[in-house]
């Protein structure tokens, strides 16, 4: 996988990890990555290695997330938290432009995007796949989103291969992890044992190689490469969940009237959590924010969710009024119509929507239930 000119893998001892932070800064990057806040591991600006969730892990189940102490001092010994990298490319709230009255007419002033170059430290394999999905959404069509594209051009993707699977993870089913295949600039594997705590570094792009060149890290021993492979294989074999993706797009097209939707609708609270934590959900709405004089108006964009009633407002009513129809839109979009729209699944198997659902709705279980033909009506009854 390593391209020519990027050099072979290197090994960096844990004690020298601060030098990696310095190398990133020397290459012009501010660093965002995992840190513990309010009882969860979130992604935020990092000042130094000590900001990392050293010695912490997360325990996840449907509807449950808890931080726990590890028996070691791992820097990346957790799976994924409630936040995603998406917010650095597609902010929850963003001013798009400002419109000012100009005599009888008006003029539009575009918004400058934050020029900071960001190193996204600790991207998981599934999250890299998620980035590819949002790339298709925001840059793959006729009109690319300018804000996303500008910010996207300024990131460095520093991946860390997963040393353990979360309780709600199913990246193996989705073919997105836990090993990092494509889409990273740098790939790290944290090796806790045997031997000293250390990191295997691989540069996958010129930008990644530029950072690596600043490190005084020796070429990796073959044994370390093998160990990294074993770590990934062990993670792959301990997935918390699995999802049978065979024909799932057709399944969802054919089961729009399945009684299971009634069942899940009785549990779903339409709280929007699953769409807010999902690394690929892209829906947004726009707002006009006038200033006090009324001469200037700011156009803001903010995240929206298909679980909101107003999302489908049409002629003073909503197209998707029932909770059933809104949950169905979410699931059929993620795993079904996303393929029609973007040529890929909208789900990358991170499990966040399962963990952060207050009532523990698990899409892998819902898909399994939809695969069971309903007792009486196997064909859709026409309206």
């Amino acid at each position: 996988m390593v391209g020519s000119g990027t050099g072979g893998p290197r090994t960096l001892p844990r004690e020298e990890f601060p030098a990696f932070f310095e190398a990133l800064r020397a290459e012009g990057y501010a660093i965002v990555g995992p840190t513990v806040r309010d009882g969860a591991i979130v992604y935020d600006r990092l000042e130094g290695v000590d900001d990392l969730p050293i010695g912490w892990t997360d325990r996840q189940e449907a509807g449950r997330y808890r931080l726990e102490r590890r028996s070691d001092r791992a820097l990346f010994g957790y799976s994924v938290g409630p936040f995603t990298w998406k917010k650095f490319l597609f902010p929850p709230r963003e001013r798009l432009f400002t419109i000012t009255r100009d005599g009888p007419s008006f003029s539009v002033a575009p918004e400058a995007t934050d020029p900071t170059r960001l190193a996204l430290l600790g991207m998981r394999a599934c999250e890299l796949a998620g980035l590819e999905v949002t790339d298709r959404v925001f840059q793959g069509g006729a009109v690319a989103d300018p804000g996303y594209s500008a910010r996207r051009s300024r990131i460095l993707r520093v991946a860390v291969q997963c040393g353990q699977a979360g309780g709600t993870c199913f990246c193996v089913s989705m073919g997105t992890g836990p090993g990092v295949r494509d889409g990273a600039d740098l790939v790290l594997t944290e090796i806790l044992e045997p031997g000293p705590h250390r990191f295997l570094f691989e540069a996958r792009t010129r930008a990644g190689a530029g950072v690596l060149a600043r490190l005084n890290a020796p070429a990796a021993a073959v044994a370390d490469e093998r160990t990294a492979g074993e770590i990934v294989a062990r993670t792959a074999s301990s997935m918390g969940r699995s999802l049978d993706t065979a024909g799932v797009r057709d399944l969802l097209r054919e089961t729009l009237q399945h009684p299971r939707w009634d069942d899940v609708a009785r549990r779903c609270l339409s709280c929007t959590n699953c769409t807010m934590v999902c690394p690929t959900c892209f829906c947004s709405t726009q707002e006009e924010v006038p200033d006090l004089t009324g001469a200037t108006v700011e156009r803001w964009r903010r995240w929206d969710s298909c679980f909101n009633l107003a999302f489908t407002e049409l002629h003073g009513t909503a197209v998707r009024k029932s909770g059933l129809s809104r949950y169905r839109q979410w699931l059929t979009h993620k795993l079904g119509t996303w393929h029609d729209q973007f040529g890929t699944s909208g789900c990358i198997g991170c499990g966040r929507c399962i963990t952060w659902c207050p009532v523990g709705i698990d899409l892998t279980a819902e898909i399994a239930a939809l695969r069971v033909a309903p007792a009486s009506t196997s064909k859709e009854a026409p309206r």
Partner: protein
Amino acid sequence: MLADPSPPAAAIDPEPPPLAPIPYVVRSVTTETPDTVTLTIRPSATRRIATPRPGQFNMLYAFGVGESAISVSRATPEGELVHTVRRVGKVTNALAALTPGDTVGVRGPYGRGWPIAEARGGDVVVIAGGLGLPPLRPAVYAILSQRESFGRVEVIYGARSPKDLVYYDEIQTWRRRTDVRFQTTVDAAGRDWYGDVGVVTTRLPDARFDPPKTTAFVCGPEIMMTLSAKALADRGVPRDRIWVSMERNMKCAIGLCGHCQFGPSFVCRDGPVLRFSALEPFLAVKEV
């Protein structure tokens, strides 16, 4: 510890944002019905949108209020645009309150319009319900401008009542033409209406066309389109030659905000004009 690196110099993204409205000036405002007006607008500066094709729509912007998707009812090569707006809420009320000389924002044109070229060589049936006529109007003119390329042309226009008919004077001139059959019907009427009464599908048996060689363009409220498309299909018009113009909540109109999804389609980008054969399975399910 090192400080964050200083930002690179060029930070402004030079392109005008794709969601930014372009100022146009209102030239004239015509009252169509008690709640509907037709706006004729033209570019106020050098920037203008590309010339829309029949069936496409624009996002019209009322300063400080917001945007609405509005179909293009006419577009001249000089850049003049005609839009017919029904007052239903915040933005459409602001748009309908504009007077000549006022500024309105425009971005567009968006979506895929009527596939007029595909209809060549056969008969054409156009069915419009209520405000479904404005987006069909440029299609009718395009067909009439190359009349010899088509077989019989039937236009059926239905509205709730006589006072809800738009483009009344223009309808009269269409009715006098001999190269197109134009039927108007209303759901109910008083004694002062001498035209047909009955829902729009009741006019279909009177329309003359050769179903297997017919292309149909249908626009109106969703239920009217569904019923009309089914009636056309029952008459033998192939489902993939029946085209309907869908309406969904729209925020961006460029396939980025997710609001307009209908099954696999983004109505703003893949539609609004879509094949009935592709829509039918989803129209048959409530609340898709």
